[in-house]
């Protein structure tokens, strides 16, 4: 039984708008295997996800703000926001190449040479190059400036030795955005360089690590006398760290802009799933206050995102304020996931298919959600940033 009520229709985007175009595209292309609210076995293969993402580019869902010369659509943050609202509201899978689109791409755009931009950027959008991010090391996590992977100048380029860890998606990537140092470890932030390293270079060894959800996505990456051409250096030596932090602060503001709507969509799924059985609806009723609090958080998160978008449009520096949405979202989303997990763990044994799908999704969100306060700067690091750079608290009288 398909139920349509006026509220559902009210949420439909205006005809002809970028949002409407996006929604129509998703409706036409999001298959059951790809949907994260259907737990089909087997689900979509990696190749199907890659093809889907390449098609998104043609459909105008990715590369929206990138210049046309580099394969983008040359539109504004407004269209980007409209499309991301629709992407978020839908049960679309997370991007395979988010590192490429949200990190490597913007860095290349900021510090890359013209020939690098023309070569590398379109390949990201066409999914010819999936990227991974080689920053963290066993001895350099929160204290990234303590990284030890060395890049030594040679006659024909650079020789890289060292080890990276927690490199998401490394085993399926074609390129690695590598942060390495040309000087001594004592130099800390100085002498850090960025490279675009082809993952099939001799001397690279990738080992997958199984994460708490059983997935084998993040990896250890070993670099053993890996030769990287000068042509694959991004920006000048010494510029690496500065470029990385500048881009990261902007990226904290604009990337995964769909996040608040995805969060909203997960609440919608929880609610509408529970409406399919009187028993689960009764369970849900017991959580009405917590649920309201989650929905309140979604609205407040949108406020943080829009404040940063406004600042970007006004040409203002984002700087440490990028910490606000990251910190707020990660903790609010974990609270939601904890509540949702508790709710679905109470579902009756003879639940219908919709409830079984909902349960599987919420369990997955709960487990993977534990990473949200760890990656992209842990909660403690975000709090340190706010204390030092926004509140400017002294440490000594």
């Amino acid at each position, binding site marked *: *039984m*398909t*139920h349509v*009520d006026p*509220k*559902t229709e009210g*949420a*439909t985007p205006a005809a002809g708008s970028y949002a409407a175009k996006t929604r129509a595209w998703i409706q036409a292309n999001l298959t059951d295997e790809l949907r994260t*609210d259907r737990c089909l076995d087997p689900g979509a293969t990696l190749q199907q996800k890659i093809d889907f993402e390449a098609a998104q580019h043609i459909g105008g869902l990715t590369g929206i703000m990138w210049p046309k010369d580099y394969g983008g659509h040359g539109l504004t943050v407004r269209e980007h926001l409209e499309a991301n609202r629709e992407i978020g*509201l*839908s*049960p679309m899978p997370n991007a395979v190449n988010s590192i490429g689109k949200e990190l490597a791409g913007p860095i290349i755009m900021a510090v890359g040479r013209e020939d690098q931009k023309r070569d590398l950027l379109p390949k990201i959008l066409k999914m010819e190059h999936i990227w991974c991010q080689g920053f963290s090391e066993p001895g350099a996590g929160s204290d990234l400036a303590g990284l030890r992977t060395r890049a030594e100048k040679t006659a024909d380029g650079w020789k890289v030795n060292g080890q990276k860890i927690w490199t998401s998606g490394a085993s399926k990537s074609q390129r690695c955005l590598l942060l390495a140092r040309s000087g001594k470890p004592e130099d800390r932030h100085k002498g850090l360089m960025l490279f675009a390293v082809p993952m099939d270079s001799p001397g690279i060894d990738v080992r997958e690590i199984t994460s708490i959800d059983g997935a084998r996505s993040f990896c250890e990456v070993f670099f053993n006398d890996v030769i990287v051409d000068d042509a694959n250096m991004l920006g000048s030596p010494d510029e690496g760290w500065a470029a990385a932090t500048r881009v990261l602060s902007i990226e904290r503001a604009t990337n995964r802009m769909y996040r608040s709507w995805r969060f*909203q*969509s997960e*609440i*919608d*799924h929880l*609610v*509408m*799933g*529970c*409406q*399919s*059985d*009187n028993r689960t*609806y009764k369970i*849900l009723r017991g959580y*009405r*206050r*917590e*649920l*309201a609090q989650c*929905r*309140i958080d*979604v*609205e*407040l998160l*949108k*406020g*943080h995102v*829009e*404040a940063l978008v406004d600042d970007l449009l006004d040409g203002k520096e984002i700087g440490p*304020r990028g910490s*606000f949405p990251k*910190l*707020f979202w990660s903790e609010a989303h974990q609270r939601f996931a904890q509540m949702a997990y508790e709710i679905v763990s109470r579902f009756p044994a003879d639940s219908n298919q*919709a409830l079984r799908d909902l349960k599987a999704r919420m369990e997955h969100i709960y487990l993977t959600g534990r990473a949200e306060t760890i990656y992209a700067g842990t909660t*403690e690091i*975000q*709090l*340190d940033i*706010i*204390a030092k750079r*926004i*509140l400017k*608290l*002294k*440490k*000594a*009288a």
Partner: protein
Amino acid sequence: MFDDLDPKEFEETAAAVVDACASADDAKARGALLGEAGLIGVTAPEDAGGLGLPLDFAVPVLSAAGAGLLGFPLIEAVLLAKALAPVDADLAGRIASGETLATVAWQGRAEDGLVAAAPLGQEADHVLILRADGSAVLAQTGNAVTARAVPALDVDAPESAFDISGDLTGPVLDAASVATLQREAQVLRTAFVAGSSDRCLTLAADYAQDRSQFGKILAANQVIRHRLSRDKLAVSTMRNGLKRALKADVEDADLAIEATWLGTARAGISVAESAIQVFGGMGFTWEVPLHRHLRQMRAQSAYGAVAQATEGLGDRLIAARTNEWYGEIEHVV
């Protein structure tokens, strides 16, 4: 027409006037100062003695009031000066100028014979009394409507109750204007709490960098730094949420305003509680004003029926079917 005006400019004016109010004798005197500066009639139409500005111009005004522990029912007066204008422009003008002190009884209905939660009701000339059909009457205090002292948490603008004996007379606001007034009240309260909690945070951050224990300032300790960072996040969340909720193109303005208010009300209280903790024993004294901030924010939460409204939002949420992507799921309830 407002192109050359910026809500930010109001911030400084408002802060200066609120400062001046601190040394005024009573609420009436404060009303006169506020009225003269145009702060009460900020959103009221010009033909009723107001400035005719959009609601976001009232935000810095109420923020300053919250920060400055203003002993005046400014939220109520701003709302009434605007809402009353089409009904009784003369009275609206007197409220805007501060000549007449008006308040709102946020709890109870006329039909109950008793209404409550009216800030500074004891000193008010008029009180807005809500009725069961959604409309409201702005009654003169005195004969049929008499103020009654009740235990009040807020010491700067203590609330009172009103006994109603006999027929209510006075200008009437219809249900639609009362609904608008309630909605705008959420905006003004959010601004008030944001200002109040921001002040608590500033006081706590200053204290933590001044007071030393174990041979170092309190702010040298990461637990204290992180506590203050969380409070900063809370205050920024209020301000950014409110800014978005007041944008012309916001997706669902009613939800955005309500959610921002409900989130702010809870967070503001926790920022004040946190500041008291940072002050240690000093924080527990009458002299340090943190308890006054806590009291006034608790009072606003009660006036704004935060607990009930959160449950109401939850009820609406669990009954809603707002996402067409899940529309195929069977709906049996």
